[in-house]
């Protein structure tokens, strides 16, 4: 260390102070960064399973709560970093607090600002003492560590944990729920009026998707899709897309067809969905014969069943049992409509969460073959059913059927696939029990 001279002592001291400041502030920046990473990774580790497996509302609540915690932590971190940040005015005082300098450094530097430079009887002695002390407060001594080990280790551990959780999650892909039918009202909303109980035959559900009938209707299905709710839904969607990839795309498509975006599919339901696809015909007919409104499942909806349905479009309708036809006719008589919906509820099929087809609505041709046509024999129309050929243009009825709500309602475009599936003219493959 060079010996200080009274004239150049302050410059030497100031240079060393700057070096100490650089090292100290770099250290503090690293510490803040590592703690931020650790906190972010820890919270992401917490959110990841929720994003994959929890219902949308639960995830939304957890996500916003997590963001609040993260924001609070960021504020605390910012305040702590600001407090520890070594600004120039207090750099010397801090250095003296870390080293046994007894105020010599600060005295020398501050006295240099005096008109006479603080020169006096003891100035030379002070300079000599400061020169002797230069080794005592080198950057390495004052800030011994260049890297905040604890913060770094915590950040690495949190990242590793996050990677592990993500990997484990990727090994539990979602099941592809089959789309089916139910007598229960859609979108987790119970009917408010007794009349709605009779429209259960038009309901569409995805059996593989958890239903939150009582307490947790999905915010996506609610009629108040706020921006914040959409944001959390998008985050959840992105997470699922990133982790599950193609598997999630299948589920998403099925959910879109079902018109619901209930929380993630539970692992192990893939088999259920396949089973439904294999035995759907029987389940569907059995459900139709039930008077309790138990869930119905219909073949041909969902990825597995759609191909077989396309090959045999007329069998379902032709093989509908008279028993079912009687029941549907009775409901139609009581409620004035055997079509789709009550005719006044725009959310008959639930609120749209993801609108892959874009906003707006689609048109359902008046001549579209409708499932309700299977009951034509009991409706008093007496007209023969349209041809099974989808390209054929059936003859229109003499007049529009009363209370045919399906022809008048507006349906969001997101439900086009579902509605077309529901109202597709197809043949029942199996005999009614």
């Amino acid at each position, binding site marked *: 260390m060079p010996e200080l001279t009274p004239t150049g002592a302050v410059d030497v001291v100031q240079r060393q102070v700057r070096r100490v400041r650089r090292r100290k502030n770099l250290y503090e920046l690293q510490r803040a960064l590592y703690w931020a990473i650790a906190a972010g990774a820890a919270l992401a580790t917490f959110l990841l399973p929720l994003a994959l497996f929890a219902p949308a509302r639960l995830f939304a609540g957890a996500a916003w709560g997590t963001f609040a915690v993260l924001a609070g932590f960021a504020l605390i971190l910012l305040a702590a970093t600001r407090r520890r940040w070594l600004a120039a005015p207090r750099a010397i*005082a801090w250095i003296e607090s870390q080293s046994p300098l*007894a*105020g*010599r450094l*600060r*005295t020398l530097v*501050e*006295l240099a*600002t*005096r008109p006479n430079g*603080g020169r*006096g*009887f*003891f*100035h*030379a*002695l*002070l*300079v*000599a*003492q400061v020169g002797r002390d230069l080794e005592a407060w080198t950057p390495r001594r004052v800030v011994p560590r260049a890297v905040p080990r604890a913060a770094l280790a915590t950040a690495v551990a949190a990242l590793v944990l996050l990677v592990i959780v993500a990997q484990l999650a990727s090994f539990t892909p979602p099941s592809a729920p089959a789309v089916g039918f139910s007598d229960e009202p859609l979108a987790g909303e119970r009917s408010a009026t007794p009349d709605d109980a009779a429209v259960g035959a038009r309901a569409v559900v995805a059996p593989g998707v958890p239903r939150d009938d009582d307490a947790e209707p999905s915010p996506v299905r609610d009629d108040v899709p706020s921006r914040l709710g959409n944001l959390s839904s998008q985050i959840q969607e992105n997470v699922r897309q990133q982790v599950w990839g193609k598997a999630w795309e299948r589920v998403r498509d099925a959910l879109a067809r079902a018109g619901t975006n209930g929380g993630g599919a539970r692992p192990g339901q893939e088999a259920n969905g396949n089973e439904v696809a294999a035995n759907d015909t029987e389940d569907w007919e059995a459900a139709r014969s039930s008077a309790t409104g138990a869930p119905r499942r219909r073949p041909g909806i969902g990825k597995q069943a759609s191909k077989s349905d396309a090959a045999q479009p007329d069998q379902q309708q032709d093989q509908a049992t008279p028993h079912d036809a009687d029941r549907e006719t009775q409901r139609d008589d009581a409620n004035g409509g055997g079509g789709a919906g009550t005719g006044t509820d725009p959310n008959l099929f639930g609120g749209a969460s993801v609108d892959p087809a874009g906003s707006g609505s689609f048109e359902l041709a008046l001549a579209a073959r409708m499932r309700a046509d299977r009951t034509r024999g009991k409706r008093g129309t007496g007209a023969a059913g349209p041809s099974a050929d989808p390209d054929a243009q059936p003859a229109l009825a003499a007049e529009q059927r009363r209370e045919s709500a399906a022809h008048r309602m507006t349906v969001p475009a997101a439900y086009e696939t579902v509605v077309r599936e529901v109202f597709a003219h197809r043949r029942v493959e199996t005999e009614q029990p």
Partner: protein
Amino acid sequence: MTPAVASAAIEDFQQVFAAVRAEVGRVVIGHENAIETILTAFFAGGHVLIEGVPGIGKTLIVRSLAEALNLSSNRIQFTVDLMPADITGTRIINESPSGQRELTFVPGPIFTHLLLGDEINRATPKTQSALLEAMAEHQVTVAGTSYRLMPPFFVLATLNPIEMEGTYQLPEAQLDRFLFKVLLAYPSEAELIRILSTTTTADPPTIRPVLDPEQAPARVEGLKRLVREVLVAPHVEQYVAGLVRLTTPAAARGDSEAEVEVRRYVTYGASPRGAQSLVLGAKVMALLDGRPHVTYDDVDKIAVAALRHRLVMSFAAEAAGVAPAHIVERVLVTARRLRS
């Protein structure tokens, strides 16, 4: 000035200080802190007010100090009928051998190096005020003529507690001219036994002069000048200023406990002389610690002694039994917090 010379000067100061303290300590049993505070004030160029009941060694301390430093000393016993001229001196008609009569000034006992004003608060305020000019300007004025006092001039006044009979309150202006106020407590039992064993023998301990009698005044003045050379950084000056301002009710506007107590119990706070005494005392402390510069700790060490007699307490303080030293200690806590 080279570092070696400055370092040697500090060592010389420390040696003289330690030697005087040791010599006084041979005679005065106990009161180590009081002796150090008195010596600090002496080398800082101030005066000391000692408060204590009679018989606990106030006069002995002053006499021992004078003997150790080899300086002249006088003692004035203040009484209620003491007049100012009894202190400063007076002009008398003197007849020369030729028969010519002329007015001649006869210096009073104040013309000495070390002056012990014993029981200063037993004199009337008028007589007490006779010391004001001497203490502040080291001169006395008699009949329009000013007479310089011999340096070093050091007043060590003793004060009986105000509750005692026949005492007067010292004027604030005079109190302010004392650098420190020292409280002498009763000696402990062990100290009392030592006092008995050393003062009741045929050969009581005597003081060996530390300084040469011819050079003593100059040496002391040199050491006092050295004290004033000690460096004080702006941050210490700022701390002292803040500390003194915190003792004044007008400046103590914060919500800290100390500031609330200052507003409630203090009528007038410390004056700028208080700040000067803090810095001067701190400089001596720095030299005693071997440093050429003052730190916060030096100020804190002498803050109570330098400020407690400068606070004019309110009736509420007297009623509540709040001592000025208590206020100063509270203010110190607040000032330490503010500086960090």
